[in-house]
């Protein structure tokens, strides 16, 4: 195939440049430079009208004001809880799709898992609000069944936020889990079983090590999406949902304090990136492989 290689790469410098231009414009103008601008905004302080000096004041403000870093820690912690719960709930379903159900049944189940995600998050959240609010379907039903004496407000609790987050994240966990479980050879499980291993041992010694890349990929993606979520915490958690993205919005759009908002944005970005890198390091995977598989 030397001819093909020459035809593709030789004598086409201008073609290469032409193909590279959109990529450079996209990444340069919409990703790299804007984030540089965000960094500049966050590391300076206004000392007079249109006069700025380099400063860490916005980051100091973050650590001085308990409300800010409480929200940050809370967002991170709830994202970890939501990610773990999503993994636990998704794993059995992924197992059924990859190992137990056959042919059409597996395909249908997989399809059923995808359908809700073709519909915008706003619509799904509306559904949860109609189900859970005080005058909603679930409280009314519980009163009718005699389980509750009078309707209870199920919205605006941390648990509600978690339910909503798990719901919106589910598919992003199931897809990588299914693809990593499908490649697990059944013969290995049968062999372990024949040698006297029980279900728990098989899970611990064979299934989990094999599925580790899928588990990592799913957890990384779910954690990132949860951390950056806006609709679900603000609508299901109400005014005091205490989600960090909401704090960023408030600084940027409501208070118009771009320096502070940029610092918050950077902190969120650092947290999200740290978790991604830690997850990859922990399981020895490369970024390109994990993202490419999606």
């Amino acid at each position, binding site marked *: 195939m030397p001819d093909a290689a020459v035809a593709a790469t030789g004598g086409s410098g201008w073609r290469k440049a032409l193909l590279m231009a959109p990529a450079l414009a996209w*990444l340069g103008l*919409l990703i790299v430079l804007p984030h540089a601008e965000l960094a500049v905004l966050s590391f300076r302080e206004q000392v007079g009208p249109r006069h700025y000096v380099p400063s860490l004041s916005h980051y100091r403000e973050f650590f001085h004001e308990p409300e800010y870093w409480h929200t940050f820690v809370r967002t991170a912690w709830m994202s970890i809880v939501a990610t773990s719960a999503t993994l636990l709930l998704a794993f059995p379903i992924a197992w059924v799709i990859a190992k*137990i159900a056959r042919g059409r049944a597996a395909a249908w189940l997989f399809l059923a898992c995808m359908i809700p995600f073709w519909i915008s998050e706003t619509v799904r959240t509306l559904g949860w609000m109609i*189900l859970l609010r005080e005058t909603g*379907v679930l409280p*009314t039903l519980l009163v009718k069944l005699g389980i509750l004496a009078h309707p209870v407000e199920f919205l605006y609790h941390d648990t509600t936020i978690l339910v909503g987050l798990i719901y919106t994240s589910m598919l992003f966990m199931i897809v990588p889990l299914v693809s990593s479980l499908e490649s697990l050879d059944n013969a290995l499980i049968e062999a372990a079983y024949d040698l006297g291993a029980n*279900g728990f041992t098989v899970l611990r010694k064979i299934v989990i090590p094999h599925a580790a890349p899928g588990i990592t990929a799913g957890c990384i993606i779910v954690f990132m999406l949860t951390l950056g979520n806006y609709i679900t915490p603000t*609508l299901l958690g109400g005014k005091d949902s205490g989600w960090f993205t909401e704090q960023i919005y408030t600084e940027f759009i409501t208070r118009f304090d771009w320096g502070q908002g940029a610092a918050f944005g950077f902190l969120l970005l650092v947290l999200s990136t740290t978790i991604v890198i830690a997850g990859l390091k922990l399981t020895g995977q490369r970024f390109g492989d994990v993202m490419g598989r999606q």
Partner: protein
Amino acid sequence: MIPSLPRPAWLRAATALYVAAFLGFLFLPLIVVSVFAFNNAPYPAPPWHGFTLDWFFANDPTGRLGMFHDDELMHSIWTSCKVGVWVTLLSVLVGLANALLLERHEFRGKQALSILMLVPLVIPGVILGISILAFASQIAQFLDDHFDWYVRFLRPGLPLVVLGQFSYIATIATLTLRARLSRFDRTLEDAALNLGASRAATFRTILLPYLRPALIGTAMMSFLLSFADFNTTLMLVGGSPPLTVLMYGRMHEGATPVLNAVSVFLMAASAVLAIGLMRRGPRRASG
């Protein structure tokens, strides 16, 4: 554990029960949204007051206004469509250029560039939004200060929304188009060139038809992602909100069943798109 091994009856039952409960969890919110689009009551809440299509078609300026007569709502759907078309166009074109660049050319920094192309997927949408907002304002300020130019499209509004959504949807377009292109048999192109076809003719008659299913799939996905985007859009939107932002605002105020009607409409539209995509499935496999 797996069908070839003995599974106790209780485990089978538990599995079936779990799958059923899981499907209930997935579909309950969607079912509830749909049901209350047809309830003859001013709030999307029980009890059931009888069937009505008012929330779609009513046109009573003093009372009920169905979705098709709610101008603000219809305008926001139109806005979402316009934004979606632009994002789709940009993402598919840039994605195609990227796929060709990465699959067919060698250059210094190629590895770094292909990693950088994945980065937009791991940046939270809110941050993509604020960084683009800040950068655009900086440029606008600069042009205003030094040249006295007022550049409208660098201020919050639909052009920035398009750019914000495109900034990460382009990654997804690149990934899918590159995957398809990497399986292309290059000898077909060589044959065409040997037989005297020009490069343009080869591209048009060999490569484009091969990529067509992937291009259509990518376009549909880009449109859908754009239509559903909220986080990036929220930070960049000006006076004319797309549907997701409008719905969010109304849900904060206390929703009426009109939003349920819109949701049913969206579900129907998604279903049509999904079926369209799946019918292409088998053809894609045969190439």
